[in-house]
């Protein structure tokens, strides 16, 4: 009867079966921290006066590196020194890595059936490969570094089914925005989300990662897609160690079921200041933009760059608008160069940078001024998320971001055809 989450949590807690609501202690397979959440974790860890479970620890500087200022330089150094002091191999220095969630997947840490905790809320991204993965705090990360274990409340699971063929320029981003628009930013609070249906199984891994990535924007604890051949093929020659895929039982008990028709989903935008404020991109009216941002753990993969490049090829970004393109990892950047995508972006007058989370959270490399508007392929449009409190962020898929950069206003790419 168990769902995927219940099966993984039972296995990792050493129990035969766990029921929703129960608090259990589980063995965590991997714990990841970034440069922002790492520093407080290292400070807490030192209080334990113990050796870390170094094979479980992954350290990825990505938020404020390359260092944005002296304070962030000190913070990044704290991570580097922690890695050296405890001989932690899995530390990914600037120029060798990228945005943490993309890197966790590329580097083969993520695999079906694993339980992964990360001190970053978008750790739920790994559910796209069949992991139970969830965001935690820094003190919790330190606890796992010391003991390998952490407590969790077993969540209820909601089932989301999407059936049918997707419309042109509709991506994983639109599916998850459509769902969040329907259930709200607390629609999955404390719960696990599982995704099924022909639309989901037809999606690229990249689109699936986008869906799992944004389950936290509905309050979800994790967002799992049953792994299939696409996942197994991706993992060949990449995955570290063995893994065993986990599926829910046919009679698994879900707290709720939601069904959607792919035909009803159009290129969608989440208006400020919550991801639930969704509307079709074609119905927004004339919203002029100052910045178009393409990147992040949500939509900074090669598939995202390809569709944006397809739209931008031979075109110029509208005068008065700036476009920023940030491939989510070194590998993606290299691939984009090999495929000629970087040249297309530069010919269109986009600014291309190496991987960093900077702009997505209003840190640096694309901060918005008062009253500026950004169309962004990221995951959050909270008040002041990307800069000044009176700046505004509209969330959309990479095709909408590219089309809007050309017209200078939020645009459904179907309009350009």
């Amino acid at each position: 009867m168990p769902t995927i989450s219940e099966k993984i949590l039972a296995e990792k807690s050493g129990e035969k079966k766990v029921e929703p609501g129960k608090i259990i202690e589980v063995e965590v397979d991997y714990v990841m921290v970034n440069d922002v959440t790492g520093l407080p974790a290292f400070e807490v860890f030192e209080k334990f006066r113990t050796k870390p479970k170094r094979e479980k620890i992954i350290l990825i500087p990505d938020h404020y590196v390359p260092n944005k200022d002296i304070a962030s330089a000190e913070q990044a150094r704290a991570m580097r020194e922690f890695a050296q002091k405890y001989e932690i191999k899995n530390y990914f220095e600037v120029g060798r890595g990228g945005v943490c969630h993309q890197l966790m997947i590329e580097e083969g840490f993520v695999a079906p059936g694993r339980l992964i905790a990360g001190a970053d809320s978008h750790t739920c991204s790994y559910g796209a490969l069949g992991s139970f993965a969830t965001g935690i705090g820094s003190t919790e990360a330190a606890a796992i570094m010391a003991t390998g274990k952490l407590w969790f409340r077993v969540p209820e699971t909601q089932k989301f089914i999407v059936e049918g063929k997707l419309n042109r320029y509709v991506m994983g981003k639109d599916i998850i925005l459509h769902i969040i628009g329907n259930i709200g930013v607390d629609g999955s609070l404390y719960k696990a989300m599982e995704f099924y249906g022909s639309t989901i199984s037809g999606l690229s891994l990249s689109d699936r990662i986008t869906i799992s990535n944004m389950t936290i924007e509905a309050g979800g604890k994790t967002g799992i897609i049953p792994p299939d051949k696409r996942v197994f093929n991706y993992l060949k020659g990449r995955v570290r160690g063995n893994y065993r895929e986990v599926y829910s039982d046919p009679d698994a008990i879900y707290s709720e079921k939601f069904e959607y028709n792919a035909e009803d989903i159009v290129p969608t935008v989440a208006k400020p200041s919550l991801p639930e404020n969704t509307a079709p991109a074609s119905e927004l009216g004339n919203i002029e933009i100052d910045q178009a941002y393409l990147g992040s753990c949500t939509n900074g993969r090669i598939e995202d760059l390809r569709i944006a490049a397809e739209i931008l090829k031979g075109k110029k970004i509208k005068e008065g608008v700036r476009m920023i393109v940030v491939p989510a990892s070194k590998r993606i950047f290299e691939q984009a160069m090999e495929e000629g995508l970087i040249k297309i972006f530069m010919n269109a007058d986009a600014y291309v940078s190496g991987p960093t989370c900077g702009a997505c959270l209003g840190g640096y490399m694309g901060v918005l001024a008062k009253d500026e508007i950004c169309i962004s392929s990221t995951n959050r449009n909270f008040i002041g998320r990307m800069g000044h409190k009176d700046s505004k962020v509209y969330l959309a898929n990479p095709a909408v971001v590219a089309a809007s950069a050309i017209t200078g206003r939020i645009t459904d790419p179907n309009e350009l055809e």
Partner: protein
Amino acid sequence: MTIRKKIKGRIWKFGDNIDTDQIIPAEYLVTGDPEELGKHAFEKVRPEFVNKVRKGDIIVAEKNFGCGSSREHAPRALIGAGISCVVAKSFARIFYRNSINIGLPVVECSVKARDGDDLEIDFEKGIIGNMNTKEQYEFLPLPPFLLNLINSGGLVGYVKKQLKK
């Protein structure tokens, strides 16, 4: 660290979906120090907060408080600002966990209140009283595991005990 049996404090009232970017904007995430973070709490949305907040003040909010980022800097900033407890209709789960783990009391309860009202919280009895409206509200105590965790000194104390075993 243990939860005090009873606390009283002046209320700061917030609405739905107060996200962690509002609680502590990302540009200040270059330290884990509660005092330092507390200087910038709610800076973008309620700039008066840091100047007027007093030690022991209580936040009362509606649904989904603390949504968004996993940054533990958010509850740390509230502790640094002197907040003694957050009462909300519901909490985002990472914020909730972080608060319990580092010793910021959080209570899930729907309370009617206005800025400046005085609130009394009895953790033992599970009762909240708004001293201004005289209304009372009941809440469920934390499950035994979490109470034990808090009474062990938060997650740090709990882990220290585990390591000794």
